């Protein structure tokens, strides 16, 4: 039955019914299709189904690989045994979303409905919950969790002193209201969006206009943007909220991944490699969209139907065609909505003219008179006798080439037919008019985003209309099959997988349709996906431990009822992240201590069911920010162009050298989320602490512990500089230096034993060494 589901139902279901055959019900199977009955119970050799899938080459399935011998054997056996119909249970993530009742569990420990769900599960597994953590632990945990920073000692003292019953809630509200929150949680989203600021591949050029998207994400979290709108804007903000410049900036999401400069801008149109570059570029857009918003692995269906989940290859290419009208490019926007509106209109006109101009200009560029042919030959020779690198040609040759090029222009001008020339002049005149009006506007900003119109770079030119996307047999660009129609997945119940967007409609209609499909309140994936992500970041593990895969190869929820309850609660209360965070962190589950408990550990060593809090090493960004903060140097300036903490030299493959930068240079003490993120050469310090490869979509960071990390924290010039600043800060403060340093780094006072150890050490090795030491302690790096 699962073979039918995975391999046959793509075409033979109640919606498509190829050959009028529907294999989704016992009735459909019994009825058969155009060719009559397909299964004769107990007689495999008389069953059409068995015949069609076996033999070489088999007639079915039409797309994707033939069934394996094993699969055919299973089907034969099933028919031999009577072909009885037993509908397998719907996969958990595709079950309709309904709000479960809160379990009726009585305990003084319970603070919120979340606790009831968790406690019920703990009881079921024979586990017991842990006590509440102490207040210092709680404020440290909460501040790292919501801000990615430690609390200040003053904040700790104030919280310890606040005996009011709502002291904890006030703390939560304060933290959620701070702009530090958006910087922390925006960074999580940037992992999922695999946001980077260079193209990757060879010629890893910087993207100096990527950052407005990063700022958009941070602002969206800080403004508690409803999730539905957050999704819509990132896929189709330009079309759905055209009046809001930031909704266009949001399209940076689609453009976040790598981009092959050589493949896109240097290869000639129509070549295999060019087509492959494009299809992989769109693949990245599909992958990030479906992973980020719906936690499904649609990208597994590029070469064949999904092997484990009910996703047809055809559906995958339908998703590709959603993005067939856009590329990744710099896109102008204005912070002033009025200017932005004017620019939008002019850009639309400009695009229209450019669409008309291109075929004429292409035609003209192909004109060859005998003189032009002769001149071209001469030009090629001049170029060949020197290197192809224009800069290294001898001056006299450069001059000849320049003169030749000018002469060519003249020859070409004379060779253009009169009516073509007139049409060209007319269109170029109109274009100049538009440009004049555009130039009268204030200078725009740019965001690197999905764009249907942009200035060409080499052979990289905006698509005149959405490019046709063919289903590719085995994923190969050399084997195109039928043209795809914009659409999504048929496995999500109650939603239409075909968008019905005419191929001639504006390309943005496709993206709008996908955004609506994803944010439909009945989409069983979307709402579960996002609450699970949020849970994952709060606890260090999701209720589903594969946040980007809710399919058969992913994990199953450890507490399905809780996940569904959270999903419905989140969806129906307006998709507010801040409400969701508060719901979670107010719970008794969240407030548990991280103490070890042998009896519980025997049953659930991995703490899947949350009988305690997970102790976690802080991530790379939090670590770096904590160090700078302890040094008293943290610069809380928000937004704007990213800080480049490397020496940069533009070249064929640009050079990014991290061993050559001054830690004290302006901007370097801003939060890590504002660092410039290079794909080919990530910052070695951050990489060592598991900052992920930004070419990959990261739902879950790994945590490694290595000697190279120890070396980085002991010797990295940036870290040592902070140790020195910390020492200076302690000197300036006067009084008990060790106490100061403990309070700034560990948010507590040293105990007498520590003082007894460190006072003589301070006398022996000095304050800088002491500061360096504390920044290397386990206590500094872990949050209980």
């Amino acid at each position, binding site marked *: 039955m699962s073979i039918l589901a995975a391999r046959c139902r793509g075409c033979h279901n109640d919606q498509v019914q190829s050959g009028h055959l529907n294999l989704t019900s016992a009735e459909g199977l019994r009825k058969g299709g155009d060719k009559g009955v397909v299964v004769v119970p107990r007689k495999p050799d008389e069953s059409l189904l068995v015949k069609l899938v076996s033999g070489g080459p088999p007639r079915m399935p039409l797309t994707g690989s033939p069934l394996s011998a094993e699969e055919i054997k299973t089907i034969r056996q099933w028919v031999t045994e009577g072909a009885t119909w037993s509908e397998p249970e719907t996969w958990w993530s595709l079950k309709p979303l309904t709000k479960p009742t809160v379990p009726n569990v009585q305990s003084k420990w319970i603070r919120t409905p979340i606790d009831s769900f968790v406690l019920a599960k703990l009881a079921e597994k024979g586990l017991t919950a842990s006590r509440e953590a102490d207040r210092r632990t709680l404020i440290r945990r909460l501040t790292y969790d919501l801000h990615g920073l430690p609390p200040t000692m003053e904040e700790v003292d104030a919280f310890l002193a606040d005996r009011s019953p709502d002291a904890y809630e006030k703390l939560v509200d304060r933290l959620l209201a701070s702009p530090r929150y958006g910087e922390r949680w925006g960074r999580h989203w940037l992992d999922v969006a695999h946001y980077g600021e260079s193209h990757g*591949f060879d010629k890893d050029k910087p993207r100096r206009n990527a950052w407005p998207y990063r700022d958009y994400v941070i602002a969206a979290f800080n403004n508690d943007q409803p999730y539905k709108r957050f999704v819509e804007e990132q896929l189709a903000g330009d079309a759905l909220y055209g009046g809001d410049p930031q909704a266009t900036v949001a399209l940076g999401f689609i453009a976040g991944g790598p981009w092959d400069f050589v493949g896109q801008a240097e290869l000639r149109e129509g070549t295999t490699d060019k087509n492959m570059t494009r299809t992989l570029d769109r693949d990245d857009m599909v992958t990030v969209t479906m992973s980020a918003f719906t936690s499904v692995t649609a990208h597994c269906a590029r070469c064949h139907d999904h092997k484990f989940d009910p996703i047809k290859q055809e559906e995958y290419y339908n998703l590709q065609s959603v993005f067939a009208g856009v590329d990744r490019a710099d896109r102008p926007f204005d912070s002033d909505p009025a200017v932005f509106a004017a620019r939008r209109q002019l850009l639309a006109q400009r695009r229209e003219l450019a669409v008309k101009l291109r075929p004429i200009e292409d035609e003209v560029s192909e004109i060859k008179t005998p003189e032009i042919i002769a001149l071209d030959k001469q030009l090629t020779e001049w170029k060949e006798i020197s290197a192809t690198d224009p800069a290294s040609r001898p001056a006299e040759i450069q001059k000849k080439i320049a003169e030749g090029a000018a002469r060519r222009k003249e020859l070409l001008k004379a060779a253009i037919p009169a009516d073509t020339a007139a049409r060209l002049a007319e269109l170029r005149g109109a274009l100049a008019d538009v440009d004049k009006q555009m130039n009268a506007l204030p200078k725009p900003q740019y965001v690197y985003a999905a764009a249907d119109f942009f200035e060409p770079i080499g052979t990289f030119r905006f698509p005149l209309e959405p490019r046709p996307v063919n289903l590719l047999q085995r994923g190969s660009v050399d084997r195109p099959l039928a043209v795809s129609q914009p659409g999504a997945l048929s496995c999500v119940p109650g939603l239409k997988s075909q968008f019905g967007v005419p191929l001639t409609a504006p390309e943005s209609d496709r993206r709008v349709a996908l955004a609506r499909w994803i944010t439909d309140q009945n989409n069983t994936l979307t709402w579960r996906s996002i609450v699970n992500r949020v849970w994952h970041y709060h606890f260090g593990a999701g209720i589903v431990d594969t946040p980007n895969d809710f399919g058969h190869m992913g994990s199953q929820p450890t507490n399905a009822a809780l996940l569904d309850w959270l999903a419905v609660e989140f969806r129906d209360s307006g998709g507010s992240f801040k409400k969701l965070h508060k719901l979670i962190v107010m719970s008794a589950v969240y407030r548990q201590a991280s103490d070890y408990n042998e009896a519980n550990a025997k049953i659930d060593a*991995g703490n899947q069911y949350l009988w305690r809090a997970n102790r976690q090493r802080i991530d790379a960004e939090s670590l770096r920010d904590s160090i700078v903060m302890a040094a008293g140097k943290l610069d809380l300036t928000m937004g704007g162009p990213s800080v480049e903490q490397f020496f940069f030299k533009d070249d064929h493959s640009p050079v990014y050298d991290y061993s050559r930068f001054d830690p004290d240079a302006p901007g370097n003490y801003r939060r890590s989320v504002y660092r410039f993120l290079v794909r080919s*050469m990530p910052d070695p310090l951050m990489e060592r602490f598991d900052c992920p490869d930004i070419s*990959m979509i990261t*739902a879950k960071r790994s945590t*490694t512990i290595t000697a190279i*990390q120890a070396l980085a924290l002991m010797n990295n010039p940036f870290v040592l500089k902070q140790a020195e600043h910390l020492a200076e800060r302690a000197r300036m403060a006067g009084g008990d230096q060790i106490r100061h340093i403990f309070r700034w780094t560990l948010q507590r006072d040293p105990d007498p034993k520590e003082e007894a150890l460190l006072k003589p050490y301070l006398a022996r*090795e000095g304050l800088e060494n002491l500061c360096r030491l504390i920044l290397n302690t*386990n*206590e500094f790096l872990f949050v209980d």
Partner: protein
Amino acid sequence: MTTRRNFLWNYGGGLGGIALAHLLSQEGLLGAQSGVHHPAKAKRVVQLFMSGAASQCDTFDYKPELIKRNGQKFDPGGKVELFQSDPGAVMQCPWEWKQHGQSGKWVSGLLPNLAECVDDIAFVHSLMSKSNVHGPATFMQNSGFILPGYPCMGAWISYGLGSMNKDLPTFVVLPDARGFAPNGGGNWSAGFLPAAHQGTMIRASSANPIYDLFPPKSASYITPESEPDSLAVLNQLNQRHLEGHAGDSQLEARIASYELAAKLQVSAPEVMDISKESAAARALYGIDDIKTQDFGRNCLVARRMLERGVRFIQIWSGADNGFPRRNWDSHEDLAKDHGLMASGMDKPAAALIKDLKARGMLDDTIVYWTTEFGRMPCSQGSKGRDHNPFAFTSWFAGGGFKGGVSYGASDEWSYKAVENPVFCYDIHATVLHLLGIDHTKLTYRHNGIDRRLTDVYGNVIPELLA
């Protein structure tokens, strides 16, 4: 959520593998000596990567047809689609071909030293690439994918086999002194594998060869005397902290990581210090010749690392594709630019094979020479060659590879692979096989897919095995 096995992998790889190396070997998870899935022939790999695309038809893929038809129209039949040019005339190799060794292998005069090693080498002449563009093709040879973000071969091997030593990284990268190849550090990325498995870059001729191995000079408060004191006090602080947080192996691993870091500070400079190498060794690797000194030093350091149990070493010949040419991407003037690259690479690469052999180490060390794709048999301009993804050559020496054999063949032009055409998948599968790994079983679940070095392809090539 961390299962025991998961924990060991997450914390147990790369240099961190040292942290728990004793634990791992006790548990028998590491097939350090014997392979994971079957007995291993090889323990170590040195990969020599010719960045920019080294020509097959000017090195090892001998085609008399090109000599015969030199200067004639290149007409192999069908459409010829080149990377950046229209096909020029057939161009013969600028160097003279001769047969060498017992095997009688034809090698061009470009590589006189490697020519002496042909009886130890297995050649594959039928390699193809899925991309004709340097960046994606270089990724492919390294990771099996033409996209960034996938773990490279060294990272997979580090993940699969772990460490063989207690004080050096498992996977080391020695870049070309002129700069990085296309894709930069992406070529030795751990991708979605834990970061510990990525290549540790060592710039052998630099003052600070490993990032952060030692504090900068400006930190004058750190001295050889202060350091043991600091480490001892840090250890005491961490031990006290551990008492209050019993049963957490992450905290213990971090404590151990400082001991290992200190060992690395001793062993890394030692392994890179070639001053005590004999005059014969210096001469063999060409250390004192300006042409060969950079690649020679990297090869010699590599041999020292292999002796000390580094498992995978990647050495680069060539930087990026910029001008003036500093890698094998000889679009303009093949004789000049390939001549320059080969004169730096040939002698040290041959020295590595000979030296390993003399030390009895070639038996369990694979030397693997490769590039991202080949070059066209026709000319670009009049003296250069454009890219050719349809046929190129890689070779192997030692570690269970058969010597003196050639596998697969290109057509009469050296234009397309026609006999036993293969992609890197088969190459990767074969190397893993000799290391005792079944390439279909070395997997890592990422975003819903059990990823492998060989994607969904790959067959071990039995003809290459000794």
